[in-house]
């Protein structure tokens, strides 16, 4: 069950540099938890960032910079040794950081019915994006929710496919606004995915702006 659809390099570099906002970072981090290859790529990008920092011309600070730090340290406790963490009773289905954002594992979730699909809106401090969990019944089409911006969709469980490709657990689809397709959930089990979209700021129609909050799309 290998991951076949990975993070594009611009996302990896942006995540390593710290330039991705919270919503996009959530999808990146959830994919990283499911994909060792991309974890490695981020480690390489961070090592490259570190190498570039080392090559910067050093900047001298105030003369008493070290003295100031030492003074603050003497007011603080010694560094804490890492405490051993008890392993959980059973292996969770969802990885961190998703469990923390959702307040639990897959079996703890309270879904909202959208008609054919179910969803959970995920709260972030990020006004640029909207994050949600979607559950599409086996064999059913993924509801249309593209709106012209970027969209990251990470499969957590089950699968979906369209005419050209299929996406299984750990696969991430990085779609620009010009992608038009109608994906369908695999027929063997419900498909659960994490979807991050640009915040819905782009609707020009006044009517759409009015109904938009009602549907949370």
């Amino acid at each position, binding site marked *: 069950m290998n*991951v076949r659809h990975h993070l*594009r*390099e*611009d996302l*990896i*570099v*942006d995540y*390593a540099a*710290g330039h*991705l*906002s*919270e919503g996009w*970072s*959530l999808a*990146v981090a959830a994919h990283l*938890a499911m*994909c*060792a*290859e991309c*974890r*490695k*790529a981020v*480690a*390489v*990008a*961070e*090592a*490259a960032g*570190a*190498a*570039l*920092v*080392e*090559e*910067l*011309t*050093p*900047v001298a*600070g105030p003369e008493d*910079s*070290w003295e*100031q*730090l*030492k003074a*603050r340290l003497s007011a*603080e406790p*010694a*560094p*804490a*040794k*890492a405490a051993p*963490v008890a392993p959980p009773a059973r*292996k*969770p*289905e969802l*990885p*961190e*950081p998703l469990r923390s954002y959702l307040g639990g594992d897959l079996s703890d979730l309270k879904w909202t019915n959208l008609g054919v699909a179910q969803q959970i809106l995920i709260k972030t401090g*990020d006004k640029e994006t909207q994050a949600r969990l979607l559950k599409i019944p086996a064999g059913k089409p993924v509801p249309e929710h593209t709106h012209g911006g970027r969209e990251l969709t990470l499969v957590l469980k089950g699968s979906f496919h369209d005419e050209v490709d299929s996406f299984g657990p*750990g696969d991430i689809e990085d779609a620009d606004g010009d992608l038009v397709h109608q994906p369908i959930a695999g027929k063997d089990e419900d498909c659960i995915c994490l979807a991050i979209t640009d915040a819905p700021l782009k609707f020009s129609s006044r009517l759409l702006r009015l109904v938009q909050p009602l549907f949370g799309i």
Partner: protein
Amino acid sequence: MHRRKSARLPAKDASMSDSEKPSLPAADMSEQIVAIAMSADMAAFETLFKEYAPRIRAYLLKLTRNGQAAEDLMQETMLAIWHKAGQYDPARGPASAWIFTIARNIWIDAWRKQKRPAIDPDDPALRGEPEPDAANLIVQKQDHDALHRALQRLPQEQVDLIRLSFFDEASHSTIAKKLGLPIGTVKSRIRLAFGRLRTTLEEMK
């Protein structure tokens, strides 16, 4: 046109002012971090501070363009290094990368007031183990100079692009404006540059 370079040269293009004069890579600090974790070793911490404070300050100055903020955030970074030294795991990467990620996270948290979701490396739900390959080994065995050598083998314009990605506060749109290119072009060039860096690391094995 790709220009191979054998040494760090000042950029010709004024918009690439991020290019720096040659500066020696910092010394490896893994021993110092372990000493801080084991025995709250103040001498080791001072060595690390002398080596890294001016570089972290330079990095944070690029991101914030504010001298006082750069100094304050550098001090916060050093405090975090002191407190988190016990979490440093040499098997997960070189000390320089660990120090870099701490400075970066302090910048996101304290300056940008944002969150950066990340994996929990001890999460039992974590999937897959990486195949041991060259890029991985270089990162893991702390080949301190490998990244510098790989960066030197890249064409100057690709290094400049990676550098802008790390040091420009506002990401691709700003880079696109700076270079007068469409944002899609900037993204695909960053993909190329980083792909090239990884291939170069593989070839160096």
